[in-house]
């Protein structure tokens, strides 16, 4: 007894599964589309809180740190490497330069499959979106809108200031 048929079938399944990223990417029309975050164009928005390299790798850690410092320690200003001071406010400082997350954050985040939970608390600036997306967000069932109503950032701020 050799069971050649079963063994070959097994090998085909194994090779098929193992090489599935090849078939998947080769047949995907968007495989080679890389993220294209929209960068600020205004003259006074030419400098971020840290270097490009640092921000690409470590922004999440920085944001995490800011959150802790603001909420727990009451520190509200951040001094960057070149001495410039920034207010540690996500909505003002970050979104000030990058107003539309879908054009900025989501570009890379969707690409590498990292979900954000910024919008669990913060109001996602969705109103700047256009077309059908807008309608979707404004519909009564919209999760984002509901969250916005329930958890207004101002209320949140009050909650946290109380804890301080």
């Amino acid at each position, binding site marked *: 007894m050799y069971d050649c048929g079963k063994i070959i079938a097994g090998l085909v399944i194994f090779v098929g599964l193992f090489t599935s990223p090849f078939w998947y990417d080769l047949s995907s029309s*968007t495989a080679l589309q890389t993220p294209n975050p929209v960068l600020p164009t205004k003259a006074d928005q030419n400098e971020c809180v840290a270097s490009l390299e640092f921000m690409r790798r470590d922004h999440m850690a920085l944001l995490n740190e800011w959150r802790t410092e603001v909420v727990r320690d009451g520190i509200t200003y951040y001094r960057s490497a070149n001495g410039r001071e920034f207010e540690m406010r996500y909505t003002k400082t970050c979104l000030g330069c990058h107003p539309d997350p879908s054009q900025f954050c989501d570009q890379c985040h969707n690409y590498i499959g990292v979900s954000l939970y910024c919008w669990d608390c913060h109001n996602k600036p969705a109103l700047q979106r256009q077309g059908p997306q807008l309608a979707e967000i404004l519909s009564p069932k919209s999760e984002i809108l509901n969250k916005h109503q329930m958890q207004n950032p101002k209320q949140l701020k009050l909650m946290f200031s109380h804890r301080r």
Partner: protein
Amino acid sequence: MNAIFSLVAVIVIIAAAFLGASIPRLDFLFGVVFPYAAITVFLAGIIYRVIKWSASPVPFHIPTVAGQQKSLPWIKDSPLESPHNTWGVIGRMALEILFFRSLFRNTKMEMKSGPKLVYGSSKYLWLGAIAFHWSMLIIVLRHLRLFMQPIPSFVLGLDSLDGFFQVGLPGLYITDVLILIALSYLILRRLTVRRIRYFSLASDYFPLFLLFSIAGTGVLMRYFYRIDLVNVKELAVGLFSFHPAVPQGTGVLFYVHLFLVCTLLAYFPFSKLMHMPGIFLSPTRNLANNSRMKRHVNTWNHPVRVHTYEEYEDEFREKMREAGLPLDKE
């Protein structure tokens, strides 16, 4: 000694990757040439080994039975421990492959004075093995988010499941913790249990150290010395869609991780790691206990010298006649 040999081997591999990837012009080698070569060796090697195994027939029907056979209709058989048909075998194999059934049976013998032998259940090896293998599988599947574009939804689902506890940022994966604990246990067990160390070969330590280094560099890159994941994905998708391009500034640590993975892939077909395909072909597990129901054919069943009844009667005819036993030839 064997452990030190393996440890040195892994350190040399890490050092080679560290030095090699620091040289800018070697990016292409580490980022493109090695991965393609490793995948080729892995696949070709496994196919070659499995075909080589299959070239030898299964001459006899030798399942190791671990439960009641199917015999009389009123005796309850155990279809998963002593399967009598293909479905039972599939069930038994599934239990073995997915849940390590036989290892779960493990006991520990102790001799007390008297002498008195006692056997206790011993599930640590099973726990370590299952924690390692399942973590490994989930981690590999999670990596598909960096290999596939667009990302299939099951990968995202698995990712959020694995990061369920939302500890820290980037979120801690449960499997990252488990795999490091499980590998540490398996390494320590091999090093500290003298009986196991006695028969452990360099080729037993090497894959453990290699896997630990792979998991370790992965953890470092996620939680401590982060790298640019967009670059990583561009490189990976480029490889998988045969448009290889090496983005700049991905970081040396990443290349060390990648090179270790390449080493593992290329080493796999020549090592004991072949237990992965091998378990499917193990004749004591993948055959039904139906030996007397269905004839198993041996392809090389060559004739052997036998002592025929005629020869026997020729030798003992007189004695048989005297004893009054019937004879074929008077």
